[in-house]
């Protein structure tokens, strides 16, 4: 596929080159096809945003020198990870290798970025290496505001009150806690106030854990402690799923914000209530990932990164493009892996144009599709399309477009799994 594609883009380059030659016959034939690199792009973070940016810079840019720095050995998907918690999928089902990106010409470094120097145009790694760049992409995901929940900063508390809001070892550990739990036990899930990564994710998780209890530990309960005044996404559909499938298992409580935790007793304190649970899953409030803060990119509410939506370039530091959950979202724009993939394509197109000294496309579009499993097979969705608004310099949803499923369905379930296969392949060239 790649060779065919590069033929297409070469033909396009050739066409433009011929036109240029017609205008300036003395210019010669330099740089048609394989010439020197048009620029060096370093990408920090290999999640949906960073991986997609790496893939599309190579796919669309031709000779762009792309280095991807990611601390994990392989990609583990947050979408579908709730099915692992429910026992319906395995970790191997949600783990994707970076080999496809490497085959596409991306240089991959497994390592930790400790600093970005915009003056020297250099990314610095923990092992002392320095990577020079023309443009840098930071796709750091989220990190947790542990100080917002009393007691949670202690390492013992973080081991007991797992977030499992980044797929990987925490997914495995929470599944192990659920398997070890006695029948008749209580699983509590604390949800932070919006905005947080994956708005419908917590409610899908409640369904998946409940589906496991229903089959294997029928006397057990799922207690949802939501800091928000109501279910933040697909509300009616989740309420129906709770009632249709998990009556007597899921108990949902709105306006129940977790204030502190006690690792010794496994207790969580709310404003008026103490909750003791056998498995206490705490999703803390979130902000842009640490490296965004270190690099001086966080300029919105002390939590998120403001970006120019035409290029995804940070409004705080020139030359640094920021993708995904870490950005200060445009109106109605969710923090999702799907959206991070879409941000990455806007950034890749713009960076190639910037490296070539061409004008940046003025009318980008991004869209989001989000599927949630309410049983092992039945799925509900929400979709939205966001067009760039030149007047307000932001993305806006198109009136009349988007919406949620009419009802949960197995057709939706098949679409969700097909979506996962396609977005993993699209993001990781797998």
């Amino acid at each position, binding site marked *: *596929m790649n060779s065919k594609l590069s033929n297409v883009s070469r033909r396009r380059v050739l066409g*433009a080159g011929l036109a240029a030659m017609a205008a300036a016959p003395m210019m010669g034939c330099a740089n048609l096809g394989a010439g020197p690199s048009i620029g060096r792009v370093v990408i920090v973070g290999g999640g949906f945003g960073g991986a997609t940016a790496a893939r599309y810079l190579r796919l669309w840019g031709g000779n762009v020198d792309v280095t991807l720095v990611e601390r994990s050995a392989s990609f583990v998907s947050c979408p579908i990870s709730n099915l692992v918690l429910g026992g319906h999928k395995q970790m191997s089902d949600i783990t994707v290798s970076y080999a496809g990106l490497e085959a596409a010409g991306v240089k991959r470094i497994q390592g930790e970025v400790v600093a970005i120097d915009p003056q020297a145009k250099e990314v610095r790694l923990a092992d002392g290496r320095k990577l020079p760049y023309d443009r840098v992409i930071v796709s750091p995901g989220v990190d947790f505001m542990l100080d917002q929940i009393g007691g949670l900063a202690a390492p013992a508390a973080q081991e007991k009150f797992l977030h499992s809001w980044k797929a990987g070892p925490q997914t495995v550990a929470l599944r192990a806690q659920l398997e070890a739990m006695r029948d008749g036990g209580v699983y509590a899930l604390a949800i932070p106030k919006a905005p947080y990564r994956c708005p419908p994710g917590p409610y899908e998780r409640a369904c998946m854990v409940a589906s496991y209890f229903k089959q294997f530990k029928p006397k057990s309960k799922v207690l949802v402690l939501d800091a928000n005044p109501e279910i933040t996404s697909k509300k009616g559909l989740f309420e129906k799923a709770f009632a249709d499938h998990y009556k007597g298992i899921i108990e949902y409580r709105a306006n129940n914000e977790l204030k502190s935790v006690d690792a010794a007793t496994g207790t969580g304190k709310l404003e008026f209530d103490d909750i003791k649970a056998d498995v206490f899953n705490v999703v803390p409030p979130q902000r842009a990932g640490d490296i965004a803060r270190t690099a001086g990119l966080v300029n919105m509410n002390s939590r998120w990164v403001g970006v120019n939506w035409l290029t995804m370039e940070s409004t705080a530091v020139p030359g640094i493009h920021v993708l995904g959950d870490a950005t200060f979202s445009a109106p109605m724009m969710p923090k999702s892996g799907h959206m991070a993939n879409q941000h990455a*394509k806007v950034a890749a197109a713009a960076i190639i144009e910037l490296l070539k000294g061409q004008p940046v496309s003025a009318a980008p*579009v991004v*869209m989001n599709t989000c599927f949630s499993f309410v049983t092992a097979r039945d799925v509900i969705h929400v979709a939205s399309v966001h067009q760039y608004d030149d007047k307000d310099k932001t993305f806006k949803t*198109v009136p009349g*477009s988007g919406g949620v499923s009419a009802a949960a369905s197995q057709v939706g379930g098949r679409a969700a799994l*097909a*979506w996962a296969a396609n977005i993993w*392949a699209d993001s990781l060239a797998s």
Partner: protein
Amino acid sequence: MNHISRLTAVVLMLAASLAQAQSNTLGRNLAATCANCHGTNGQARGDSKPLAGVSAEKITAALADYKSGAQPAMIMHQIAKGYTDDQIKLIAAFFAAQPAKQ
């Protein structure tokens, strides 16, 4: 052909090729928003509908039917309404030009 008309021809050719390149890039970028479900360049995996190599007329007509409601859908009726008719034409032209198989 005098000098001026020759120059005009060159300028027109340049402008046309520039406009073509710009709409190719725009079509490519717009079509990439579909890749999360329909595969990179429309080369889908699994149960998703492949779009690579499908004729532009077919894609344009299908999206128009989703938009109008003539063709009921689980999700495409919601997504199709987010794109203008001009954008749909560019997307359809892009997918039609892609090889059907990897």
